[in-house]
């Protein structure tokens, strides 16, 4: 039997619909000579359709799952994010308050690095929580959840700059928005959160939904 694409298979096992028969069909077709691109496209379609099915079958629950992820992010960033960022800056780089208007600090690399580190940690923990909700049945919502964070990060970044110009409130949302200072940073934070979510999700066996005629 041909070796299966490792990452795609892990994604299917952890974020897919959890249907052994479907996985067997994929194995059978791949073994008959289908390409790696075909396998990847089937896996990604499975994940997307699984998330879509869960959302349409129980929209309130899906919303609650996304909301719980968001609440986790908000709690981490607003309750612990500033504290953690400031702690890194104080202890690691000898920075001392007070901060006035963010002047000059926006180009200080430790600020960006510590903000990005806290962002990574917050997103990763939120991802981990989401893939464990309800025994992992909602793990397929991980990708939509992480994608929903990108525009939010951009919005918070814009708000952060507005607040920095208007008042001395730069640090209120700094850990969320600061990674957006570098084009690659949001992608990296989301990728790390995705990796943590994949590692944290449990491989699921068949979740049968139909009633067998036997």
């Amino acid at each position, binding site marked *: *039997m041909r070796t299966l694409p490792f990452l795609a298979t892990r994604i299917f096992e952890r974020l897919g*619909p959890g*249907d*052994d*028969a*479907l*996985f*067997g*069909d*994929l*194995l*059978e*077709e791949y*073994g008959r000579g289908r390409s790696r691109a075909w396998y990847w*496209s*089937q896996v990604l*379609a*499975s994940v997307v*359709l*699984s998330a879509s*099915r869960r959302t349409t079958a129980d929209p309130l629950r899906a919303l609650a799952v996304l909301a719980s992820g968001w609440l986790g992010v908000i709690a981490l960033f607003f309750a612990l994010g500033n504290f953690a960022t400031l702690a890194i800056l104080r202890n690691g780089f000898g920075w001392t308050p007070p901060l006035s208007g963010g002047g000059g600090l926006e180009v200080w690399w430790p600020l960006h690095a510590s903000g990005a580190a806290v962002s990574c940690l917050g997103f990763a923990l939120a991802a981990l929580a989401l893939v464990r909700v309800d025994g992992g049945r909602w793990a397929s919502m991980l990708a939509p959840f992480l994608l929903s964070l990108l525009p939010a990060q951009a919005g918070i970044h814009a708000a952060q700059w507005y607040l920095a110009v208007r008042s001395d409130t730069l640090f209120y949302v700094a850990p969320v928005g600061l990674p957006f200072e570098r084009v690659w940073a949001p992608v990296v934070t989301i990728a790390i959160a995705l990796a943590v979510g994949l590692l944290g999700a449990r491989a699921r066996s068949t979740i049968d*939904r*139909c*009633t*067998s*005629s*036997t």
Partner: protein
Amino acid sequence: MADRLLTDFELMVLLAILRVRGDAYGVPITHEIEETGHRPVKLAAVYLALDRLCQNGLASWQLGDPTPERGGRAKKLFSVTPAGVRAVRRTQQSFMALWKGIPELKGAS
């Protein structure tokens, strides 16, 4: 289950099961739709439709034997229930009724 009409994809899936008959699991059902419908189909989309049809009592399944080429995973062998056959007929009749009396659709296939 209310007497709703089938979606085009549900109709194709049920017809594919009926055409494949004895060995109607995901792979041949998908091949049948791709060959007769001339469109690429994702296995997950077929399973999603099958799941919905099973929940609505229009199809049912039983587990087949596990095979080595499937990594020891069993096939789900699908069949159309009598309610499923009635739904196919009802949908066909509705389409035919809509079809009649349209000059642009007469003659050429």
